[in-house]
């Protein structure tokens, strides 16, 4: 099966993983190695770090999930408070029996999975070639923690390249994956829930395992599968 067919036919957001069936560590290591080997980076710096939370890290994953739910709630509250935006209510304000979307059930893959990857900013050290270039005046902005936010767009593009490669190699191993971008960015908030090993700001997260149920199956059972479409190609791509 080719690259397109693999992604098109196999990648679906996971609603629930089969927690009885754990992928081997070897298959995860293999995919991580391939992603590291084939992902390019500006100045060969790779200014990010991938933390892998394995099957024994249930408590930590629950704590990470709490930061996801907190982020979702805070973002909605901030939108209500922002006078420039029309939002007047947050999902958490609606009684739980009338709102099946809070806490968002599609975040559960972050708490309950065999493997979770959280990707964070990292201070890089220039290699020999760039050390010589720096002496000539070349700027190596990946070497400074105080520049994390300044270069976050560039770092996040590279994280996207890595996440895409990792996702594909995991699919090749017969595994399912899901992504999440909703979480608290400040490491201090991770420390508050006991995740002291996290030193720098997170950029994205990916869960992995064997799916028990996909999100699209849930949407289909609600009769809403055709409601959730991406914008048409013509909205995304413009030839000049």
């Amino acid at each position: 099966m080719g690259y397109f067919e693999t992604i098109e036919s196999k990648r679906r957001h996971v609603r629930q993983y089969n927690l009885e069936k754990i992928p081997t560590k070897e298959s995860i290591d293999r995919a991580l190695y391939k992603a590291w080997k084939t992902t390019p980076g500006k100045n060969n710096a790779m200014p990010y770090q991938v933390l892998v939370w394995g099957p024994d890290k249930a408590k930590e994953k629950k704590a990470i999930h709490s930061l996801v739910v907190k982020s979702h709630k805070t973002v909605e509250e901030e939108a209500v408070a922002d006078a420039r935006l029309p939002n007047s209510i947050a999902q958490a304000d609606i009684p739980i029996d009338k709102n099946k979307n809070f806490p968002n059930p599609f975040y559960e893959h972050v708490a309950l999975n065999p493997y979770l990857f959280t990707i964070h900013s990292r201070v890089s050290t220039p290699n020999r070639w760039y050390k010589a270039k720096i002496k000539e005046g070349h700027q190596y902005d990946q070497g400074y923690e105080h520049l994390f936010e300044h270069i976050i767009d560039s770092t996040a593009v590279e994280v996207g390249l890595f996440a895409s490669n990792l996702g594909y190699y995991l699919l090749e191993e017969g595994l399912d994956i899901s992504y999440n971008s909703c979480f608290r960015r400040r490491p201090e908030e991770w420390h508050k829930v006991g995740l002291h090993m996290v030193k720098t700001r997170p950029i994205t997260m990916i869960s992995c395992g064997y799916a028990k149920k996909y999100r699209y199956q849930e949407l289909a059972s609600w009769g809403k599968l055709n409601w959730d479409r991406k914008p048409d190609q013509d909205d995304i791509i413009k030839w000049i």
Partner: protein
Amino acid sequence: MGWKKQARTQKTPLTTFDLLEKRHHVVKYIKGKIPPKQHIETALWKAWKTTPSKNNAVPYKVFVYGPKKHKEKELVHKMVFENHKQAERNAVKRGEATKTEGGIPNPYYEHIKYNPYLFCIHSQTREPNKFYKEAVEEGMFFDQAWTSQVDHYVDTAAVEVGMFIQNLSTYLLEQDIDVSYTSCFFRDIKKWHEVGLKDAEFRPIVLMSAGYKQIYRNEILRKKNQLQDDRKPEIDEVVQWT
């Protein structure tokens, strides 16, 4: 044709890993050898089809500059070059460096000016689809719809743009078309508008070129016996099991 000859001439499809291992930064594309537009369109369609996005929003827009857009590519290149100079001056001001490279043009940016195709990917606001319209009515915040939020969620948009260009690159490499990237350019969209590049409404996120390579950067480094000096960090520095 005998089976031995067939075996010799038959191309074995590369695995995706092998294909991506062959990707290298292009210093110069072959002038005058233009990949068919259809190949580019197929790769763009596949990338659009297979790249996931939070809330199915796809909060970015891909502007494609084709083979005849020399003037526009020169303008983009100028903004890359000027940004590089400014970034170095700022580093000196902040005390991270003691000098700049003195305004010498970086030859590894030339792929932005001389290429058959250039993709400039910018942020873009989006309206929610039917599913998310209902969620918005229940209090969900669809941040991709608001101009005021573009910079706030740029990390999320940029991760998705990275996924898009990885997919696009793979589909182009499958057709023997080379690709290169750059992250060095002015972020302020006003500067793009000032030089006449008025198609995009919002800030750029990444630039990518495509064509048939004449020379890779690693070939130059190899000739200078410097290839082994320019290595990525070891996997243990990047991946850590908790």
